[in-house]
Each structure stands twice: as structure tokens, then as C-alpha cells.
């Protein structure tokens, strides 16, 4: 009966007990909590200073992290999450509604909603009722290190098929976006309305481009880490990706270009929606009102370098004029128009895009 040296039962229990005690003691301070449950992207949770007014008045809501549109739609549809407010991208709003997950929103209950640019409202309307209200928007376009190379022309095609860029490109791991890029290179009329033939050709194009694609990134951190370290020279980037990279100390003095490709940029709008089984509807409307207020919108622009849907004069006055100009934050009417920009729309045949992407990844 030899007790194993160094790890008698007593010793182990004693040590673990101390560990637990230490953990429990710390963190006794808890901020005021609100019963509201918000299913939102990691960026827009309790550290979002723009929502401070709500936190102070009603307490901090419980946040459930929203990772990617497709996966969260599936998760919510299977009943895994209970929420009051959610934040999917606007192309998915009809799916959330069809799954019975969201209820119509009465925008008259949101005083600050008047600041929202009317041209952005269309995609969130289903069957005449407003289900998704646009909040943040941005482009999706290639960003490259101008200190490492100069592209033959400003286009998706030149990047994906340039032999110098072998293993030097990283793209977002999102099937719809990748197939749309293939479609744009092949010259389709509208990447939001691709036929099965278009989709197959787009998949074939992207398979041919694979030698240049080092990886498909799931998180911005991954893309930025590789871009800044020089592992890749080109990345699919959102405006906030670009802004964070150029502000990074390690990139000081190194030119980075946020490209406007000749085939066109992709773009997205993300929106708030009210849960069909929401338990705190009134509180949710208060939250939304704060979300469309000047501090929240201004925080979006200056800290996340992302466009907000309510770009009022007050917000623009507080925003960095360089970004306002570069991303056309003050011209929402034209900022998201084709063929310069291909704003996302609900895809009736999204499944086909995703199946084609699966072929691209498996090749």
C-alpha cells in the first residue's frame, strides 16, 4: 500500500481547496445587472462605452456572444438560446423571421431612430413590417501591404492569380463571400443573384485560386496577426480591420492600402432584431434608443471605424474626418451602390452558395 509520492489525496484536496477559495474571494464587486438578454457580437458588449447611459440607468444586460451569422441562426433556430435582442446581418433577417425567432419592431418607440438614413431600411423589411433595423455597416474588400509588393491592377483577380502572391493571401471563412468573389471575377451581373451555373463556375475559379490562398480566417485576430507579421500580404478586411492594422505599433511607417477593386467591393449591414419570445420588450426598446443615440453611433465610428446607420450631423462632427471621407460615412445614399459596392441581400439559394464553398474547401 504505497501512496503515490507527491500527490496524496489529502495534499491534492488541500491544494484545490485553496485554489477555489482564492477564486471565489476575488470578484465580489458586481455591477448592477439588468434582466435584458442581448445576443450580440463580441465587440458590442459590456465594454461598449457608447451604451454607458443604458448601463447606468438600467444596469448591464446579459450578453450571449454571436459568432457567425450562419452558425448562430442554426443555434437559435434549434432553441439553444433565449434572448430579447439579437444582431444578425441584414441578409439573414428574412431567415430569422421565417424561423419564427423574431417579432416586428415598432420604430416609433425608438425616438433616436429618426437619425437613421432611410436608404438603409429596405433590406430589413419583410412582408411590409420592419423586422431588422440597420445599425452598423461596412465594406469587405482586400487590404494589402504596399511595402511588400505592388499589384498589377486594383482587382480581386489580379491578387488571386498573381504568382508572386503564392500562399500570401488570407480570406474570410464564409461561403457566401467567397463564392461572390468568384462570381465577381467571372463578371456576373449581380453576385446576389447567381444561378447554379454561375455558382459552379465561381467555385471552379476559386479552386484555381487556392495556391495563392494560405488560409481562411475565422477571426479578425487571426487575419491581423498574419498580416502584421508578414505571413500574408493580402487579407479580406473590414473597415475596422484596416483601421486597427494601421494604428498598430508594429505597422508604423509601413503603407497599407484598403483596395477598391475594379470588380467591386462587398458590403454588409448588421441590424438589431427583437426576439419573438422576448421577456423584456420595454427594456429592449430603451436599449435600442440608446443604441441609436449620438454617443453610441460616435463610438462606432471612432473606436471601431465602422459605419453607423444614423450618421447625423452631431455624430459626424465628432468623427475623424479622414475616415468619414475614405469610407463615405456622410454619403450613405451612395456609399453602398453597385457596381462600386455590392451590398449583401437575402439569398434564396444561399444553400447552393454554401455547398459550392464546401467543394472549394475540400479540393
Amino acid at each position, binding site marked *: 500500500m504505497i501512496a503515490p509520492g507527491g*500527490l496524496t489525496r489529502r495534499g491534492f484536496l488541500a491544494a484545490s481547496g485553496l485554489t477555489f477559495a482564492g477564486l471565489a474571494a476575488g470578484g465580489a464587486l458586481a455591477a448592477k445587472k439588468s434582466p435584458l438578454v442581448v445576443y450580440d457580437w463580441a465587440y458590442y458588449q459590456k465594454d461598449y462605452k457608447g451604451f454607458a447611459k443604458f448601463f447606468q440607468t438600467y444596469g448591464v444586460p446579459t450578453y450571449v456572444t454571436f459568432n457567425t451569422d450562419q452558425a448562430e441562426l442554426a443555434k437559435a433556430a434549434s432553441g439553444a438560446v433565449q434572448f430579447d435582442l439579437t444582431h444578425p446581418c441584414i441578409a439573414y433577417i428574412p431567415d430569422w423571421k421565417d424561423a419564427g425567432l423574431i417579432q416586428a419592431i415598432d420604430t416609433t418607440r425608438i425616438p433616436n431612430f429618426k437619425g437613421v438614413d432611410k436608404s438603409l431600411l429596405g433590406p430589413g423589411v419583410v412582408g411590409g413590417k420592419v423586422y431588422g433595423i440597420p445599425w452598423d455597416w461596412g465594406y469587405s474588400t482586400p487590404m494589402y501591404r504596399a511595402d511588400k509588393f505592388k499589384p498589377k491592377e486594383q482587382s480581386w483577380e489580379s491578387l488571386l492569380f498573381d504568382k508572386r502572391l503564392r500562399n500570401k493571401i488570407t480570406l474570410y471563412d464564409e461561403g457566401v463571400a467567397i463564392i461572390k468573389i468568384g462570381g465577381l471575377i467571372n463578371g456576373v451581373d449581380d453576385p446576389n443573384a447567381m444561378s447554379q451555373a454561375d455558382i459552379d463556375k465561381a467555385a471552379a475559379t476559386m479552386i484555381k485560386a487556392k495556391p495563392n490562398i494560405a488560409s481562411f480566417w475565422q477571426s479578425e485576430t487571426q487575419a491581423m496577426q498574419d498580416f502584421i507579421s508578414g505571413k500574408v500580404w493580402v487579407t479580406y478586411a473590414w473597415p475596422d480591420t484596416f483601421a486597427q492594422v494601421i494604428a498598430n505599433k508594429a505597422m508604423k511607417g509601413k503603407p497599407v492600402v484598403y483596395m477598391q477593386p475594379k470588380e467591386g467591393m462587398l458590403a454588409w449591414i448588421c441590424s438589431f432584431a427583437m426576439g419573438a419570445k422576448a421577456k423584456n420588450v420595454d427594456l429592449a426598446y430603451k436599449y435600442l434608443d440608446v443604441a441609436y443615440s449620438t454617443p453610441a453611433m460616435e463610438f462606432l465610428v471612432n473606436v471601431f471605424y465602422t459605419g453607423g446607420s444614423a450618421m447625423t450631423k452631431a455624430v459626424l462632427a465628432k468623427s475623424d474626418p479622414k475616415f468619414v471621407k475614405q469610407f463615405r460615412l456622410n454619403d450613405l445614399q451612395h456609399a453602398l451602390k453597385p457596381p462600386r459596392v455590392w451590398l449583401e441581400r437575402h439569398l434564396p439559394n444561399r444553400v447552393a452558395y454554401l455547398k459550392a464553398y464546401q467543394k472549394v474547401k475540400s479540393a
Partner: protein
Amino acid sequence: MAEIAAATSVPEPRALRRLRSAAGTLGMLLPGTGWLLLFFLVPLYYVFLFSTGLRWQGVTKAAAVVNGELTSFSWSLWGGLLGPDVSLNVLGASVALPLWAVGVVEVALLALTLFGARLGSWGRFVVPASLVLLVLPYLALPLGESLHRIAGFTSADNPSMSLFFRSVSMSFTVSLAAVVLAFPIAYFLAFCMGTSKYRWIVIVIAPFLTSYLLRVLAFKVILTDQGLVNTLLFDTGLRSRDNPVDWLLYSQFTVFVVLLYAWVPFVALPIFVALENQDRRLLEAATDLGASRLLAFRRVTLPLAAPGIVAAFLFIFIPTIGEFVTPQLVGGSRGYLYGSAIADDFGQNNDWQSGAVLALFLIGVVVVLTATTSRFLRATGGGS
């Protein structure tokens, strides 16, 4: 008085004793197996229902149809996976074979390898031959961007099946390497450390209490173009600064190395347990009888540790066929594996029915593998 009482007391009727013994056995088995029955088998039955169209993801039947799902019983999804032929490629030449034939041959070869020793004098020839034939299509050298295989199975019209064979190759190679690397660790811990060995086991396991996600991020720092390894190569002059080794990260090689890092300590444990519990006196007896240390190792230690080694191999081989987190983090665009396809079906692609088919196929293959090998483990481990 007590002795007479003891001598004349009626022993418990055999039937009752057997019933009590059976009840005891059942009672011991019930918690574990009952839990698995309820929370593993039954849910898998639901997965089967999804794979044949008896259940669908859409909230209503109409929504399911829009989603492209099956809404009534059909083997079509299974047919899509198992129907198309596979081609066996050996050094450039290739031959097309139906999948079921490949399956039958593989099982036969596995059985021959494990039990061929019983064939007497034929055994000495049959076992190595069937082992080589079994293993050849899966041996790979993951150096550079892709797995370099001498022989392999692929399927042109069926990317999922190609993916499957590619994953088995990766798993096999990683498992082999892991067992080889882990054995000296286990040996060292079992035979060269005194009572401090358990402390060292904890030290070896300790890094795994920190997040895998974060440690893989750190690996990327090591393997990237301007990372530790490449900087070492620059400093020693083996490579110039503008020509780093760019396939260290985002390739099959990366998946191989990171999987090794993740698994070797775990693989060492079953081997350690097997070595630890060998009776040292057997070794002493062997050396007393004049055997050298090497001979004693070969004829005493190794055979006794065989069940532990096989268990260790399975320990890593089986889960890594379905691995998706590592390929997703560091595999890059060419490190896509079978598990990644399943994860995408249940995540991005929202295609639970296809994912269900892939998952059940994987389980089926491994059940056969486990059933065959566990017979072998019983046979060699149960006895003294």
C-alpha cells in the same frame, strides 16, 4: 462450538449466489453504460433520423424544403457518400474500386494482422505482409504543403470520401509518430524516476490546463515566416531573410506538428501505466538468467507493454480522424480534413442532414476498428 456451526451451516444456494452476483455486475455496469445508452446511443439514433430525412432542421416542413433538406425517408444522402467508386493510386498508377470492396479487404487485412499469429507457421509470413498492405495507403510524409503518400485512396466525384482517406492518413501518421516519441518518456518516468514520477506526470500535463486555442496561437508565432524557427534558420545562415520556409504554417505539416504537440503527453500515459505495473522481478529474473538489458527489454518489457502500446495508439488514432479544431486553426486552405467538413455542415453550411451522414459513417468505421482491436486487447491483456 463455532467450528461445528461453521462446518454444518448450509452454504448459500448456488442459484441465489449467481443471482446476487449478476445483480452486482449489473449494478456496477449500469451507471456507465446506462449513461452512454441514454446520452450517447439515443442521440445518435436522432442523428440517424436526420441522415435519412426523417427529421429536418427547418422549423416547418416548408422551411426545410426551402433549405434543401429531405423531408421523407430516403437513402439518397447515404448513396451520395457511399455510392461512387474510389480509386487506389500507387506511384502514379491508379485503379478504380467499389467502396464496399475496399471496406471488406481492409477489415480482412486488419484481422489477419492482429490474429495472424494463430495461423502457426504461416503466421510469420502472413502477419507482416497483411500489416504492410493495410498500412501502406495511409503512411504519409507530411513535409511541405501536402501529405506525401506512396499509395492512397481518392475519389474524384466524391470530395468527402477523398477527405476521409486523407484524414485517416494524417491520423495514422500522427499516431505512429506520437507512440514512438511518447514511449521513451513513459519508459523514463516508469523506470528512472523514483517516487517523484507522479509529480512529473502532472508537470507534463500542466500546460494542457491552459486554453488549447491560445497555445495554438503561440505555435503560430513559432512557425510563421518571421517566427522562431525561421529566425533560427536566418541566424544560422541556412536560409536568407527573404526566403523563409513558408510551409511551416498553414499546411498539412502544421497540422501534423500541432497534433503531435497536443497528443504526445496523453499518449505517454497509457504506456506509462502499462510499464509501471510490470513486475520488476521479471526483469531481474531475466538478467539473472544472463539476458542483456536489451534482450530483457525486447523479450520481457515490450511484450508485456504491448496492450498498453496498442491502447495508446488507438487513444490518439481514433479521435484524430474526426479532428477539426487544429486543421481549422492552423491547417490553412490545404489542411482541410474530414472533421472540418462535419463541423462546417453543422456550423456554417447549416446542412445537418449531410453532416449527420458524414458523422455516422465515421462512427461506423471506427466501431469496426475498435471491435476488432479490443478482441486483441482482451486476448493479450486479460491473461497474466
